[in-house]
């Protein structure tokens, strides 16, 4: 197991920049998830860590070793591909053993390693089959086995769950997490699914257009998004981004939400740091997660406020009911109590929890911190 450092890594094809100077560092045993919309460069970055793609400039270090010019097989990594990339002409056992065969591991040792991995992943009965005779989940398992048998410094996963059906995906997600806990392995995992990112990662790197937007723990990325892109990308349903203005209110500040068609709404804020008070009288973007707007399900305390809003539509999900509210003229998503009926067009008081409020500069869209 080993640490990984990506330093000012760039990639360009001709004049097109795919990656624009990425800096990421993770420690031994961390689970890094690269997440972002398609075309953000996350897969390219993974390929570069694997050595399947060249680095235009910058350094990649595995442990303390610079690996830029090392062949993929010399980097001591193992990769699980989106399509699993099982060799169709070989049995499962041969697939798992191929890497060891290339490294000239003695046959007896190979046999033992195959048995160990098969036991770990509970696939002893599959060893003699061909990949074409396996189900999607089984193929996934074999691909994992092929990576595990190597005991590499770093595991690389390239959207390994995206070809599975919804239920299996959730199961395998748990399996991967268990595996990480048991092996204490360093893992780099690429996905476009923010739920996978949140559930698996110890560190999330959110990327867009070849730039790193934010690197942080899942809770940092979720609760303190660096900018409006991260705020709306992470979380489902995504964070409400409401244009507003900071105005003086008594001794402190209030958030004024005003849509030109309806009357405005003022929400008094608790004392704010200087960086925020500097924005008095200016336009900002207020970010509130759906679960920070509720009714009976939110405990009232000194940082909650009651606001008046119109209910537009509700979407019961079971554990709670998602609702679109009209708040100061803007549509926002709220998470309300389940097991209650909400007549459409209902106007009432809802609770807003300001502990989870984040604010963004309306020009740069960066978080004001």
């Amino acid at each position: 197991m080993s640490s990984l450092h990506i330093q000012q890594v760039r990639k360009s094809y001709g004049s097109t920049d795919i990656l624009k100077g990425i800096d990421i560092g993770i420690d031994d045993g961390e689970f890094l998830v690269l997440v972002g919309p398609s075309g953000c460069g996350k897969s390219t970055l993974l390929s570069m860590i694997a050595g399947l793609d060249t680095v235009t400039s910058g350094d990649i270090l595995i442990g303390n070793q610079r690996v830029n010019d090392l062949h993929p097989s010399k980097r001591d990594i193992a990769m699980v591909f989106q399509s699993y990339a099982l060799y169709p002409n070989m049995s499962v056992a041969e697939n798992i053993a191929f890497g060891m065969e290339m490294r000239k591991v003695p046959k007896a040792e190979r046999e033992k390693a195959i048995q160990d991995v098969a036991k770990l992943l509970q696939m002893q009965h599959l060893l003699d089959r061909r990949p074409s005779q396996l189900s999607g989940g089984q193929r996934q398992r074999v691909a994992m086995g092929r990576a595990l048998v190597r005991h590499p410094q770093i595991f690389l996963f390239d959207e390994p769950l995206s070809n599975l059906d919804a239920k299996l995906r959730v199961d395998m997600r748990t399996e991967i997490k268990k595996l990480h806990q048991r092996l204490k392995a360093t893992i780099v995992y690429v996905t476009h699914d923010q739920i996978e990112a949140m559930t698996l990662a110890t560190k999330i790197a959110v990327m867009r257009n070849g730039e790193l937007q934010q690197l942080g723990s899942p809770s940092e990325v979720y609760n303190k998004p660096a900018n409006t892109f991260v705020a709306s990308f992470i979380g489902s349903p995504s964070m409400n981004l409401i244009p507003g203005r900071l105005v003086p209110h008594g001794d402190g500040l209030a958030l004024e939400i005003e849509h030109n068609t309806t009357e405005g709404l003022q929400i008094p804020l608790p004392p704010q740091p200087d960086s925020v008070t500097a924005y008095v009288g200016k336009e900002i973007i207020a970010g509130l997660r759906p679960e920070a707007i509720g009714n009976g399900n939110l405990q009232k305390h000194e940082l909650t406020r009651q606001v008046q809003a119109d209910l537009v539509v509700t979407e019961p999900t079971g554990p709670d009911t998602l609702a679109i509210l009209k708040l100061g003229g803007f549509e926002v998503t709220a998470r309300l109590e389940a097991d209650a009926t909400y007549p459409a067009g209902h106007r009432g008081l809802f609770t807003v929890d300001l502990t989870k409020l984040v604010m963004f500069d309306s020009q740069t869209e960066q978080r004001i911190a």
Partner: protein
Amino acid sequence: MSSKNWDSPQMVQGSANRWSRVIIYGLLIFFAAFYLMPLVVMLLTSFKPLSEVYAGNILKLPAHWTTASWVKAWGEACVGLSCDGIKGYFWNSIKMVVSAVGVSTFVGAMNGYILTKWRFKGDNLLFGLILFGCFIPFQIVLIPMAAFLGKAGLASSTSGLVFVHVVYGLCFTTLYFRNYYIAFPDELVKAAMIDGARFFRIFFRILLPCSGPIITVTVIWQFTNIWNDFLFGASFTTGDTAPITVALNNIVNTSTGEREYNVHMAAAMIAALPTLLVYVVGGRYFVRGLMAGSVKG
């Protein structure tokens, strides 16, 4: 794809359907007979004694079945001045076809592998140029090739002929393998690279074992073309080194004595048998291979 899907429901019953069936089968039988007729005549003639051949009706069954003309064609018929039959030339052709097919298929597979999995600058242009080679008529290269073979010391030898066929076949074999490997997942090559396999290992252990259908197609294509070639054989060999197609021509064109049509037919059948055999053995894959990649499964 089952043929069932092609029948629309209203066509399944009714007399219109029956008539169209009759017409379809009638035409099919007619054309089958049309194409098979020469073969039938050849076979019948080759089993007749010469007197019966000259007696008339070519479609009549032999009154006395005899394999004498086959034996004579194989071992005694006169090709030019020597009367040792076509067996020597048959082996010439076998030697030529096995080496030429083997080399051109292997190099074509290698080309396809490089053009799809080890992309380099200008690879598509290079492929375009190779493709262009498929359209060069044989006649154009005759004289330059003869000059080259002479300089290389390969004139009038089986090796020279093998060389010519390899060069000519490469365009086709490269085309086949490139189009097959372009659909071969790149991720498999990447996985093998991470596993520690290099250029040749990846080719021999991963791609080649998965190339059964396209190898069959290429072998059939190359085998039939090279075996049946007459022009290169006639141009670049002399006397004993000639392939069977040239020998067959020499038997038939002998102008001395009575024309032994039964021997000629037997010799022609012998010359045609290997390609027939290859097609019967590999034909199933041939059609499958030609279709592969055209329809996404």
